[in-house]
């Protein structure tokens, strides 16, 4: 089933019936242009329910990264309203935005690890920024690095790690603070298919714990195979492509099977 996420076509309340009203992200009539150029995003209207899992797809230059940047508050829209965790970003005082950002985990397209810091320090960064004491964060970071199979590389700097290892450090950094929303921008862009699947399975496990996940990707094979709902960007507008596979659909519902955050079972995916 293909649905256009455009209020002009389906009315502004169309998605309210599709998603939980407990929205994590809400875009209303959002438009984005760079400088005086044409709008790369036009009349975007969508809501992401808590615990949902979506792929964001589209051709290169379709605006996937721009949409992601709007969600992780790296940019402001040229028009329209962006709300995160029920807060309108435009009216939220700037001093309160860091607290919102801490609830968002981001896996950047190029990882964006800090090369002068060790893997440990990179992963510890969100906790330090949040003011967690060194004595408290040490155990958490070591446990998570062990979980992503980097126990023996804690002191290694990113340039000495392989692409896959760097990616796992980036993911560990994104999830260490238990975000409510996880955004991954082309996280499978630089890795082979096997690594890409392992990675997405990891996101699925996080989703089962209640984290809302959005993965921007151009790997259509991956999207088709895993069957999560797909939001497709084309011509600056969004379309929702839902799957008929009910087994997969159940994965986007909130409150899935609770598992320990660092359940060794998850390592099977890696």
């Amino acid at each position, binding site marked *: 089933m293909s649905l256009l996420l455009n209020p002009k076509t389906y009315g502004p309340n169309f998605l309210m019936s599709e998603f939980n009203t407990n929205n994590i992200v809400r875009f209303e009539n959002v438009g984005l242009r760079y400088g005086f150029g044409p709008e790369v995003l036009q009349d975007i209207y969508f809501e992401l329910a808590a615990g949902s899992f979506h792929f964001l797809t589209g051709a290169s230059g379709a605006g996937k990264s721009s949409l992601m940047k709007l969600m*992780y*508050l*790296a*940019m*402001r829209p040229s028009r329209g309203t962006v709300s995160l965790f029920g807060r309108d970003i435009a009216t939220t005082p*700037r*001093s309160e935005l*860091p*607290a*919102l*950002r*801490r609830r*968002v985990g*981001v896996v*950047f397209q190029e990882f*964006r690890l*800090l090369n*002068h*810091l060790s893997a440990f*320090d990179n992963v510890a*960064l*969100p906790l*330090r*920024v*949040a003011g967690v004491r060194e004595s408290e964060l040490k155990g958490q970071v070591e446990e998570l690095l062990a979980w992503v199979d980097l126990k023996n590389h804690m002191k290694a700097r990113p340039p000495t790690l392989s692409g896959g290892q760097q990616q796992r450090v980036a993911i560990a*950094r994104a999830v260490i603070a238990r975000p409510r929303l996880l955004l991954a921008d082309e996280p499978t862009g630089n890795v082979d298919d096997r690594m890409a699947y392992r990675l997405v399975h990891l996101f699925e496990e996080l989703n089962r714990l209640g984290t809302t996940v959005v993965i921007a990707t151009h790997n259509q094979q991956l999207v088709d195979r895993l069957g999560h709902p797909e939001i497709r960007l084309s011509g600056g507008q969004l379309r929702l492509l839902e799957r008929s596979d009910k087994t997969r659909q159940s994965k986007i519902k909130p409150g899935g099977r609770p598992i320990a955050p660092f359940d060794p079972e998850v390592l099977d995916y890696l």
Partner: protein
Amino acid sequence: MFFRRTDIALDQDAHARFLPVLIAFMVYLAILAVAGIMLLQHSMDRWNRGISGTMTVQIMSASKSDAGGTDRAINDALGVLMATPGVLNAVALSEDGTLDLLRPWLGDLAGQADLPIPRLIDVVVDPEAGVDTQALAARLAVAVPGSSLDDHRVWLDRLVRLLRTIEIIAMGVVAVIGLVTVGTVVFTTRTGLALHSEAIQVLHLIGAQDTYIARQFAGRALWLGLKGGLVGLVFCVPTLWAIGYFAKAMQIDAISQASLGAVQLTAIASLPLVVALIAMFTARTTVLKTLARMP
């Protein structure tokens, strides 16, 4: 605080080596200027103290025909002086004493009887009493025509004006040093912000408060400022000693007899800290202003 781990690789920047050198030079110049100001103030106070308690009355000698005229005039003047509140003492110099004072300029001519030699009265006044010198001079002129009162203010005021001018110039130098330090820190901080924009963006996006990022730059600037400032202070010690030594050798009393007290020395020793704090607050302000432009 100085050795606290930082998330931004500020210690790898070229300006990390450049800033302490510049601050050392600035602190060196600032200490010399401040020490100069303090020495000038010390000299002015000393001269003021030495002179404000004394006055000199000059009595023109009477004509030859009036043998006792000069002594009468001196007695009249002494009478007026001693009756003036605030005058502690007034002593007339003897004729020989006056001649002794003139001998270095006039030689033996000073002793020749037909040369009119004025007589002097040395007056000691209470500096706190606020003696009205103009009124006193007027009373003296009435009692002893031809007398004049010199409170040494004329030449002292000129000297003080000169010293004040030098002092203002020195203060201007200190102000310029402060401005250059602030400008340099702003420039190096902005360079640092540009060099580390990637790390700063990442910190910003994972939820770092602006103050968290600014604290790292400010802490670094404080450490570099202190390091440079202490080097400047260390180099100043032999310089000030050398100035004092040569002033003594050249008999420049204003410098060689002046000394810096504990308060002044403490003020000078704290200059590196002051400059480091200026650097810290400048860096912090610069970072916060720049980050405020981020979404």
